[in-house]
């Protein structure tokens, strides 16, 4: 069966608070979905649900027709999730950090250099991550997308702290990924100019307003 990521009638609750209800989303190879919405609308929650880090309160999330809860390992093997936090160790160099993620995901430590080149991080590959600027650290973190091939990218505000050149490079990388049959779900407010990207507007949780009233 062809690859796909489908969420149907998904309801999410975090810390007792209903974040969204009956949400539907479908992504197929070559497609990108951009999540938009005010803070607290549940963009990060949705991305964590799609990764399998959270479990929905109700509804199904399937990958290529199989519920991700039934086969989480093959889902995880074929996705990259880049969250708010960088998932980098400050006292290791950029190259060492990437080499770890490459090896841990079953790839080759030697691929770290080419991954760093993709996001324009080659110049500081051998510096400790804690010595880098926030934008440089973000570039290193984004290079994790390239340490091993994965069809699905889940990106949570990937452009934060990036300069214009790096945002353009990210958009190029995303376009290439889609052209190669990749799938992307990204929460971002920056216009990346991706062709064929659908925008999904997420409303602020109406239940918050209800509770406040």
């Amino acid at each position, binding site marked *: 069966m062809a690859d796909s990521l489908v969420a149907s009638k998904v309801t999410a609750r975090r810390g007792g608070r209903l974040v969204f209800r009956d949400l539907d989303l479908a992504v197929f190879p070559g497609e990108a979905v951009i999540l938009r919405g005010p803070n607290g609308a549940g963009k990060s929650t949705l991305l964590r649900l799609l990764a*399998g880090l959270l479990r929905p309160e109700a509804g199904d999330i399937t990958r290529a027709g199989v519920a991700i809860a039934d086969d989480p390992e093959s889902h995880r093997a074929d996705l990259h*999730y880049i969250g708010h*936090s960088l998932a980098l*160790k400050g*006292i*290791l160099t950029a190259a060492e950090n990437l080499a770890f993620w490459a090896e*841990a995901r079953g790839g080759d430590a030697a691929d770290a250099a080419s991954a760093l080149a993709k996001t324009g991080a080659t110049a500081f590959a051998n510096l400790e991550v804690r010595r880098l600027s926030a934008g440089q650290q973000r570039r290193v973190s984004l290079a994790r997308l390239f340490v091993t091939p994965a069809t699905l990218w889940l990106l949570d505000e990937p452009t934060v702290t990036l300069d214009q050149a790096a945002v353009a490079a990210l958009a190029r990388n995303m376009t290439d990924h889609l052209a190669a049959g990749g799938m992307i779900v990204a929460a971002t407010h920056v216009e990346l100019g991706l062709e064929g990207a659908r925008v999904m507007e997420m409303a602020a949780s109406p239940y918050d307003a209800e509770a406040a009233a």
Partner: protein
Amino acid sequence: MTRTLIALIKRDLNLAWRQGGGALLGTVFFAVAVVLFPLGVGPEPNTLARIAAGVLWVAALLAAVVSLDRLFEADHDDGSLDGLALLPLPFSLVVAAKCLAHWLASLLPVVIISPFLGLMMRLEGDALVALVLALLLGTPGLSFIGAIGAALAVGLRRAGALLSLLVLPLYIPALIFGVAAVEAARMGLDPAPHLMLLFGVTLFAVVIGTAAATAALKFDLE
């Protein structure tokens, strides 16, 4: 799968060594705590030999607790825990690999220096051998049981004090069998039954510790 786990263990060892004594902190704590006893109790050989097993074991338990607080905390703080939870293998194996790395970095050095401190505490011959064997068989369990506390304490402030309260009571079985093995050898008896019981405690700890720490961390990710 094996490559992933080896990569993870390598990374944790690397971090432990580079973090400026992170790994050796527990070992130095162990040595200093034991060295204080002859100074406090006096150098009388019989007294020292009688309390040696208890002192060395309690110091080892404290060394384990001292080195546990960052076991998952660091990965939680920098977002690595998400990445680790998304590795394509059961999360419990990731947790077990991190516990093993903790033992290798923080408690294996304790085992290695223990005969010297045992000698200082006037343990001799068979008792010294029993001490090293008991620590070798018993300390891995300390890492795995400690992981439960470390996982529960993720994200809490002042986790260190809470961690010792949570974990030290769970160390009692290891302490009892560990001390019994050394005492048996000191009395000229066979320490083997105690060592086997101690190893049983460790195996139990590996299973329970991994499962409970995994559950606690999953709860934290949610």
